[in-house]
């Protein structure tokens, strides 16, 4: 079935700020398809973001929208969820926003298993500020602050979230847009902390610095470097270098923070 995206968009806020060829719009559409299939009420969605190109998403969608400070979206979202647990709280964030300045909030929200759905738009770079290196920039790749290539070990965002305690973790690229919306849908449905890593091309900064071509070329490259998680399990670490493992990393039923708070703490306090 075709999704009527305009139902969820603030059409008067267009044109958007994203460059042509940017993958962020593809991720947004996947998110809206997931929301549409779940038939969530717009009034019951709070979309929270930090700062960055990806974090501009909330401005374009017709929900309760909260564009916060750099890295802090998950912290604000934690307050939203605790104040109104009946809300569907969706965080949209960049790789820099979520794993550099906001890394501490990410792991602690995952550890608590609070019911948030976090979509990380990973373009390997700080798009908004002009293409500096991020904690997910692969080894050897260039950025405006990495003129000689990156020597740092990048984060694997999915392994990080899974190890920290998230209930649901999955990754897909902007090329596999249908897979992406399925994962986001599943993440929203899953009670607890869900993280979906969406690999998104940034032709303007990352692409240009590393001579990767335009947005379409970069999308094709995402497809070519993707490996399904089931295949990846049979591959050696050497074979997996430069590959993007796509699939569901974790999907478990484990106690959610606010439900536990109400069931155990609030109940005990009121008996005391």
């Amino acid at each position, binding site marked *: 079935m075709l999704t009527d995206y305009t139902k969820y968009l603030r059409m008067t*806020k267009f044109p958007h700020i994203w460059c042509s060829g940017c993958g962020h719009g593809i991720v947004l559409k996947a998110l809206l398809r997931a929301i549409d299939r779940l038939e969530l009420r*717009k*009034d*019951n969605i*709070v979309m*929270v973001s930090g700062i960055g190109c990806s974090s501009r998403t*909330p*401005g374009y969608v*017709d*929900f*309760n*929208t*909260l*564009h*916060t*400070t750099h890295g*802090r979206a998950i*912290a*604000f*979202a*934690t*307050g*939203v*969820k*605790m*104040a*109104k647990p*009946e*809300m569907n709280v969706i965080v949209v964030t960049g790789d820099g926003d979520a794993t550099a300045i906001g890394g*501490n*909030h990410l792991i*602690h929200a995952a550890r608590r298993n609070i019911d948030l759905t976090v979509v990380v738009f990973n373009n390997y770079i700080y798009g908004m500020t002009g293409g500096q290196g991020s904690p997910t920039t692969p080894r050897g790749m260039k950025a405006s602050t990495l003129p000689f290539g990156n020597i740092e070990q990048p984060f694997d965002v999915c392994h990080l979230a899974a190890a920290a305690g998230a209930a649901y973790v999955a990754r897909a690229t902007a090329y596999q847009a249908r897979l992406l919306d399925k994962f986001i849908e599943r993440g929203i449905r899953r009670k607890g902390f869900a993280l979906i890593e969406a690999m998104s091309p940034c032709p303007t900064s990352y692409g240009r610095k590393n001579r990767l071509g335009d947005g379409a070329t970069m999308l094709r490259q995402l497809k070519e470097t993707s490996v399904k998680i089931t295949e990846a399990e049979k591959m050696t670490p050497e074979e997996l270098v430069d590959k993007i493992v796509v699939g569901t990393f974790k999907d478990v039923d484990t106690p959610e923070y*606010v439900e536990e*708070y109400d069931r155990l*703490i*609030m109940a*005990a*306090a*009121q008996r*005391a």
Partner: protein
Amino acid sequence: MAERKAQMLSGNEACALAAVAAGCRFFAGYPITPSSEIGEVLSYLLPRNGGRFIQMEDEIASMGAIIGASLCGVKSLTATSGPGFSLKQENIGYAAMAEIPCVIVNVMRGGPSTGVPTQPAQADFQQARWGRHGDHPIIVIAPATVTGAYELTVRAFNLSEKYRTPVVLLLDEVVGHMREKVEITAPEDLEVVNREKPGMPPEEYLPYSHSGTDLNPMPAFGDGYRYHVTGLAHDETGFPTNNTREIDLQYRRLNRKLHRYRDDILQVRKMETDDARIGIVAYGSTARTARHTVKAARSEGIPVGLLQPVTVWPFPDEEIRDFGKQVSHLIVPEMSLGQFAREVERVAGCHAEIVRVNRVDGEPITPKEIITAVREVA
């Protein structure tokens, strides 16, 4: 009037109890001496009263969380001290910019850096006002006693709800940890203000209108208004704008807002000021010490009076200027090296001689130190 209940409390405990009485139902914080008891008491009291408490991973997160909760219509509090207060600043600026009610308690200790964790200071006076980048207003109020801590916590929530602004409650370690008997106002006699909600349909609602009263109603997320909240410069609808006129209008309204309601926001207490020839200006626990000095000096026949700003920001310029015109000297005792005196100097320095009494060794200022300064100029 219902009967007032007397209870032995510390300032921090009084603050926690008052928060619940004022309608606070969410607390997010990170432990730090000398403020930790506020969170500890609320971890017990909030769930008893249908609210929720969370210990976050740091102070930045705590500040973010209370803003998020407030946007859902829940009155929210965080509490901290020096180093944690520094960490909260960026998000306090966000609350000022996006006009989100919330209360931040800062129990002052010596600094900078880790400083003197367990001893009092009044050295966050300027940070409370100017800790954020950019032009913006903020309300800061400072109790001198445990009863004051109770009453002003309620007032802090009321002001934040009414004016859609973060309010800082500036305690010092003396007020936070001192135990004394507090007469607690019965809930039915307590004035509790709740933010105004919009009455108009969503399509007509402007969260940041700059016409009219400069104050705008605020729906909760989930009420059906689906508006946008951002720390970027925004227009009346709340969406980011690059329009220079809109940006200018918004900043001017934001900075005008509290000034316009100055009379309601400002509170000063006066003691024996009518015929005073020598003035003392002090706030927080130092003002309490100064009250003893006034009594002692009066018994020696020295005409001394005390002006105590209860609202310390916006600064009571006119009140202190007028006091300065009436006296020869203004004695300004504070547990800092002049952060407060520089404001007194700014408003009254051309009318009276400013005499500074400073202490930064972690001990409170004694009545003797103040009276010595009084005698020297009498």
